[in-house]
């Protein structure tokens, strides 16, 4: 089962690597010959994803679709934070840009989802450029502050531009019936798109574009000597992450059937940062694991609280919100200190251990 991800993840180090954190991120290895076993694994995974809606559970289908959307957003943030080493604290705001743009197109122009999400991604890309350009000219770290400003500025726009965005109440989104299959259709569409976007992300790191991202993460002055336009590539890495967020936002809008400012808060951005850190920076597998973990964790938390926590739903809700904040923060800190390569690093180690047996 672990081999399923063979093509996506990178090789495990032979021993414990001394270099930790961002520096320990591994780029894609040179393509290896595909074994029959791997092909089998891939087919199995594809079959599982296709057959999944047959479980018949609406709840499971809902969660699976949500995980897939979050995987797209996390993969985008991982390009910015994990591969290129730029800290973006406003990721959810770019998800919001995609959600609003796509929804507005759907409402006013009646264009199909596939068109809307391209424009949603493009809009987030451009907004990313606007916020990224001033700070990245100065120094990479300043992006953290600029993205925080983006978080609040965009929230302000979502909330205040009432005639267009519907203000605090937001917009309700018309349903889409993908392939005539309703919720299942949307699931297939989202999962298909997720696979495509993950492959695109992976491909970037086979070529000069991805190599340049990693180079400027590690030593931007050396990157410059090699002919990499550092400012331009930093901007690209950041805006590309925002574009992924925009696509995820477009999907989120049609999935939840509502868009409002409170979906795109600082806490949501911290959620995605946690997903990147927990899953594993600079790892495609990490984006998948991190997004899945972070999406499912609050659900499990709620179950646990309902069994062991105080009685009454109001009490549970009152505890859940701060508890979530605490856990998001603790996960970021804990993984950075104790397992900087995230769940993907753990998986790598397990596989390495398995091979020795």
């Amino acid at each position, binding site marked *: 089962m672990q081999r399923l991800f063979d093509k996506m993840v990178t090789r495990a180090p032979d021993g414990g690597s001394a270099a930790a954190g961002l520096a320990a991120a591994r780029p894609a290895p040179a393509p290896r010959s595909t074994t029959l076993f791997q092909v089998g694994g891939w087919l199995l995974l594809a079959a599982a994803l296709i057959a999944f809606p047959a479980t018949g559970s609406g709840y499971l289908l809902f969660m699976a679709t949500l995980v897939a959307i979050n995987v797209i957003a996390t993969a985008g943030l991982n390009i910015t934070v994990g591969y290129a080493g730029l800290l973006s604290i406003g990721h959810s705001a770019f998800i919001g840009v995609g959600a609003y743009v796509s929804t507005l197109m759907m409402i006013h122009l009646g264009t199909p989802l596939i068109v809307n999400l391209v424009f949603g991604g493009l809009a987030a890309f451009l907004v990313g450029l606007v916020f990224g350009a001033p700070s990245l000219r100065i120094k990479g770290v300043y992006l953290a502050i600029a993205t925080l400003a983006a978080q609040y500025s965009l929230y302000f726009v979502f909330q205040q531009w009432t005639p267009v965005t519907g203000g605090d109440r937001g917009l309700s989104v018309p349903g889409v019936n993908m392939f005539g299959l309703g919720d299942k259709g949307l699931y297939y569409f989202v999962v298909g798109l997720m696979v495509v976007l993950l492959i695109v992300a992976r491909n970037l790191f086979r070529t000069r574009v991805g190599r340049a991202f990693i180079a400027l993460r*590690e030593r931007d002055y050396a990157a410059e000597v090699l002919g990499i336009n550092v400012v331009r590539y930093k901007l690209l890495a950041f805006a590309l992450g925002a574009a992924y967020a925009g696509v995820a936002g477009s999907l989120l809008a049609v999935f939840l059937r509502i868009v409002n400012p409170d979906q795109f808060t600082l806490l949501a951005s911290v959620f995605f940062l946690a997903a990147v850190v927990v899953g594993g920076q600079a790892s495609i597998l990490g984006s998948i694991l991190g997004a899945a973990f972070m999406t499912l964790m609050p659900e499990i938390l709620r179950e646990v609280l309902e069994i062991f926590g105080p009685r009454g739903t109001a009490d549970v809700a009152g505890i859940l919100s701060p508890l979530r904040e605490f856990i998001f923060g603790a996960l970021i800190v804990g993984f950075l200190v104790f397992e900087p390569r995230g769940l993907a690093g753990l998986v790598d180690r397990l596989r390495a251990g398995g091979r020795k047996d």
Partner: protein
Amino acid sequence: MAELLEVDGISLAFGGIAALSGVSTSVKQGRITAIIGPNGAGKTSFFNVVSGFYRPSAGAVKFDGADILAMPAHRRSTLGIARTFQNIALFEGMTVLENIKLGAHAQLKANVFTSGIYLGWARREEAALTQRVDEEVIEFLQLGEIRDREIAGLPYGMQKRVELARALVMRPRLLLVDEPFAGMNVSEKVSMAEYLRRCVTEWGTTTLLIDHDMEMVMGLSHHVAVLNFGKLIAAGDPETVRRHPAVIEAYLGAE
């Protein structure tokens, strides 16, 4: 023989402390030129001016006759200026092959879209690059065995060689080498000197190098310039420089 690099009266200061004052020197096409001098003499600052990291407060830098002072650092590689760093600036998270490929960045054309799709064109470009790296630099510098290893964990001398490979892959016209012999044992030094010599004889790469190791520098270079406290105190062929009283004094005074 033509001058490939001409540096004319450059000055540079950090917070009032002069790192370079009025330094002029030139590098002839197809030769190995060395800059020597005690610690803090301004050698690396000089490199950083030529690379485009520091903007001198006065003076001119000409490459192949054209003034490049206003040109940003990343554009200078397209002219064919490559360099290595004193403290090895390799990318640890990548393999040797990928590090070397980075040297060809400016010559490649793949963009986000072609890379993302990675079919046909971008894939062919990448394959051609892999082949070129294998045939040209990996073979030349004998890096075949470690080609797919990651940088972290490679011996120091080996890392220096990988960095040289990365600079060579762009087929530079001017190669700046910052302390190629530092921290190496004798046999590593000898083989590094041999590689550098072959860069010039076989590739025709004009080379400018900095090092402390007088023996290696004198044996390898055609021309030597000596810096001390940011000033050029002597220049000429190795024999002349070795006997120059100011040079002897600078080195004796510093030790």
